[in-house]
């Protein structure tokens, strides 16, 4: 409980620091909204010409897009500390975190909540809202949507955590990870059925995006009957994050042995 309160304090500090520069914050957020929004504009333009994608309509892809982008913005916003670990290590600021009698994961999660990510969050919500007007929601599917978004967010956060773990070995944050974070986000906006077999398998077994976002979306859209499996599938996202945090602890151990 006390840990949770402390975490909220960390977030409060971060928010106040960013809101102090109000004009910059507003500009950045709107800019972020535009940058992320053009992706959906591209989808809309393609549907305007081609009408369907693998049997999916625009509003169906929009649901998927909205859920995934909202999830990604959450992970992106809260995962800033992990994303910056490479820089913290180089600057020696990570040592200061080690000198505080608190869990490192807590401190990293509370480091610089990136408020600007609300830009992507907002356009995701807007798209999601538009898609919702075409969908017959039930309490079950609504609940599933929330769980799916949270699970997908945890999954993306897990990738960022893995990225941070790698910096214990390489120091420089490798661009490679963008393939899985931004690339994963991009790929998940579209129905997984359009991709090649090997691609689908990778994103089911290794990085379970399919389980966290695609299957729930199918159930919500009524393309599949809502079964227990659809409800259990998102749990893979939470499990993935837990596993990545475990690997992170190994990285901490390595760092303590080698310094940097």
């Amino acid at each position, binding site marked *: 409980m006390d840990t949770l309160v402390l975490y909220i304090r960390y977030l409060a*500090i971060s928010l*106040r*620091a960013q809101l102090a520069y109000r004009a910059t914050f507003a500009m950045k957020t709107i800019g972020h909204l535009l940058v992320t929004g053009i992706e959906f504009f591209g989808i809309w333009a393609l549907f305007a010409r081609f009408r369907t994608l693998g049997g999916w309509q625009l509003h169906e892809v929009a649901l998927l897009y909205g859920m995934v982008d909202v999830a990604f913005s959450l992970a992106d916003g809260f995962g800033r500390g992990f994303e910056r670990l490479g820089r913290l290590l180089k600057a020696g600021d990570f040592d*200061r975190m080690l*000198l505080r009698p608190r869990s490192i994961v807590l401190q990293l999660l509370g480091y610089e909540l990136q408020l600007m990510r609300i830009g992507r969050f907002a356009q995701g919500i807007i798209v999601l809202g538009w898609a919702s007007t075409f969908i017959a929601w039930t309490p079950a599917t609504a609940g599933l949507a929330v769980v799916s978004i949270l699970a997908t967010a945890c999954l993306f956060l897990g990738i960022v955590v893995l990225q941070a773990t790698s910096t214990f070995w390489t120091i420089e944050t490798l661009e490679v990870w963008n393939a899985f974070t931004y690339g994963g986000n991009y790929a998940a906006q579209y129905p997984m059925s359009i991709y090649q077999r090997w691609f689908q398998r990778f994103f089911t077994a290794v990085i379970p995006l399919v389980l966290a976002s695609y299957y729930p979306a199918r159930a919500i859209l009524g393309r599949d009957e809502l079964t227990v499996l659809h409800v259990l599938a998102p749990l893979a996202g939470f499990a993935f994050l837990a596993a990545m945090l475990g690997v992170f602890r190994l990285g901490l151990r390595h760092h*303590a042995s*080698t*310094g940097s």
Partner: protein
Amino acid sequence: MQIVVQDLAKTFRIAERAPGMFGAVRGLVRRRHRDVAALAGVSFSLAPGELVGYIGPNGAGKSTTIKVLAGILIPDGGRVEVDGRVPWRHRIEHVRRIGVVFGQRTQLWWDLPVIESLEMLRHIYKVPPDRFRTQRDELIELLALADFLDKPVRQLSLGQRMRADLAASLVHAPSILFLDEPTIGLDAVSKLAVRAFVKRLNRERGVTVILTTHDMDDIEALCERVIVIGDGTILSDGTLADLRKRVTRERWLTIDVADGSADTVADADASVIRRDGERVCLAFDPEIVSPAALIQRVTSRHAVRDLFVENPPIETVIARLYQR
């Protein structure tokens, strides 16, 4: 003994890059590594309440030792115990009881007023409210923080920031304090204030202090005991006076002549270190010629307006120690 260090050893592996264009291209294909022994058998013990200076040239192993003692670096060999605990095995409990100040980086939040940084630290260290209040008020008074308590750290001068950092490191009333270059870049007044505070902290509260610094005035002002480390081993461990005696018996006589004869000042038993306008500095061995005798000789030959005898600056002493 509060701090026990025995045969501490630590080796680092560093990647090497060849310079120039050709080396850069080769670096794309193959990386070379070099093993550096940062610590090669360091041993010392500290009793509670000691104020120790830990000095050495850059790369000697000072920060590596501090990191091990702080519990954030695991050594390759040797035994370390702080308050009966192995630092790196119980990071959180250990870190709860120590305070660390880095001269180069602040531990305060950049955009927060100082008072709020302290408040945040109270929560992080779980200090009970009333204990915190007394502690905080004392620190505010002792370090004269009242004037800038509500200013964000980024607006503080270096001297103010250092005082605030000292306060921050003591919010949880640790029994051991590590100070790494606490007076670096400070103006003279701030340096004196910091030294006075540390001395008082050590005398009145019995806080054990380990001070690493390149400023020898800090050492002379604060430390009775000085540990010198060089190339990963302890070169000297004892009082400042012992250190001076061990390395050199030399004394320096500085005179200001009044009759313009500075260029001719010389003595058979002394060597000239420096001539600067009217000022001449002579080095001599007090066992060969006593200070009184030398002064008498020089003043009989020249019109001396002012003179003083001193020990060589500690930097010279240390430099000689490293050269051995």
